């Protein structure tokens, strides 16, 4: 796409009447490029007046502002948002860790839009018809840009939040080794499909790493135990069994168990015990850690 060469004159000649939108766009892009320095400064001023981007230093704001300005004008010119999207994603990746928020990003883009709009207004206000046509060319393009930058930022933010949630999920389900060959897995919080899967993977790895023979899973802390959750547990139990580990579920009240069975959940593969303590005792029994029965012979010896 051929770029309009910068005019040598201080003032560009007014466009002929009846010029199409494309030509008008070219014209206003040229104006925005010519007056880049002062418009950018105006914009930076408005940003600090509005108390935006307080997390960034003036130097940082300046360099990002330059890049945003140039990308903005390029996008106006080409009508293509792809390059802008890529830049916006990149920018978001940089500023999100700095604590920049959505309203700030939208704010500065809209301020830029306003600064440029006013500059156009200033330039063409002598001719209201022309001004209208210039704005007709500018506004849809400027709005598309604002939306693109806003959406890119929000998407990047959502991606970061997802990653953080993922990390929290992993941290919040520790598999504890309490005795040799015995693992305890206390589950706290909602157990959705994704979490159940993650838990299962973690547990199976732990069974191998710790050579566990018995696993006690406590679901006292799981708020809603419905048939979906129960089925996740059944799968967990079956997978553990394939690795030679037996599973004891604790914290499943007999009431809920009855409900689940009537819902058609097959609990036959699960060994359930009321509470965690009881579950651990059962596990120790299974592992042969139970206290030996009182020995009569020994008593005789001591007498």
């Amino acid at each position, binding site marked *: 796409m051929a770029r309009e060469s910068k005019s040598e004159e201080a003032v560009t000649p007014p466009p002929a009447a009846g010029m199409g939108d494309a030509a008008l766009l070219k014209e206003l892009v040229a104006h925005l490029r010519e007056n880049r320095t002062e418009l950018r400064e105006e914009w930076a001023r408005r940003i600090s007046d509005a108390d935006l981007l307080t997390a960034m230093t003036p130097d940082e704001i300046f360099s990002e502002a330059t890049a945003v300005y140039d990308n903005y004008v390029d996008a106006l010119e080409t009508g293509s948002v792809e390059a802008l999207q890529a830049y916006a994603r990149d920018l978001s990746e940089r500023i999100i860790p700095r604590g920049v928020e959505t309203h700030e990003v939208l704010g500065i883009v809209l301020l830029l839009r306003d600064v440029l709009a006013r500059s156009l207004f200033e330039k063409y206000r002598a001719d209201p018809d022309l001004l209208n046509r210039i704005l007709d060319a500018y506004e849809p393009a400027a709005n598309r840009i604002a939306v693109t930058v806003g959406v890119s930022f929000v998407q990047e933010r959502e991606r970061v939040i997802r990653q953080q949630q993922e990390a929290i999920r992993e941290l919040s389900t520790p598999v504890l080794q309490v005795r040799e060959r015995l693992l305890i897995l206390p589950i706290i919080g909602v157990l959705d499909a994704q979490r159940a899967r993650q838990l299962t*993977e973690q547990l199976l790895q732990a069974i*191998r790493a710790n*050579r566990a023979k018995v696993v006690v899973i406590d679901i006292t802390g799981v708020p809603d135990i419905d048939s979906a959750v129960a089925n996740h547990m059944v799968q967990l139990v*079956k*997978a*553990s069994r*394939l690795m*030679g580990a037996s599973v004891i579920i604790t914290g499943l009240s007999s009431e809920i168990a009855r409900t689940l069975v009537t819902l058609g959940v097959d609990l036959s593969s699960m060994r359930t015990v009321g509470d965690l303590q009881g579950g651990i005792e059962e596990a120790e029994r299974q592992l042969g850690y139970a206290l030996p029965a009182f020995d009569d012979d020994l008593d005789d010896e001591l007498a």
Partner: protein
Amino acid sequence: MPVPILKQGDFLIATVQSALSDREVLQLQDDLAERVGTFRSQGVILDVTALDIMDSFVSRAFRAMALMAKLKGAETVIVGIQPEVAFALVQLGLTLEGVNTALDLEEGLAFLRGLAKRRRDGR
């Protein structure tokens, strides 16, 4: 490459390699059937530690092997199913119900010895 089968006392230990084609599975079935009979083995260990994929064919074949061995007086234990494999099997709905499983060779042997002891003690 046929799956190597070692005799360890009353037990047979078949150690599966990483890539198991259908024909190798069928070969293993035949080999085991023959040897359980020949040695009057009390137990069979199928070690699948090296198997990175178990599908429905292998799963069914292993169940068939366990059943065959049982008919000939031997108990079977499958050992060494890897976490990812266990996960995939359960997703597929192949839970090897009715087949003994243990974590590894050591556990498998302990299991079989325990069974043999109970048999001897008349339990």
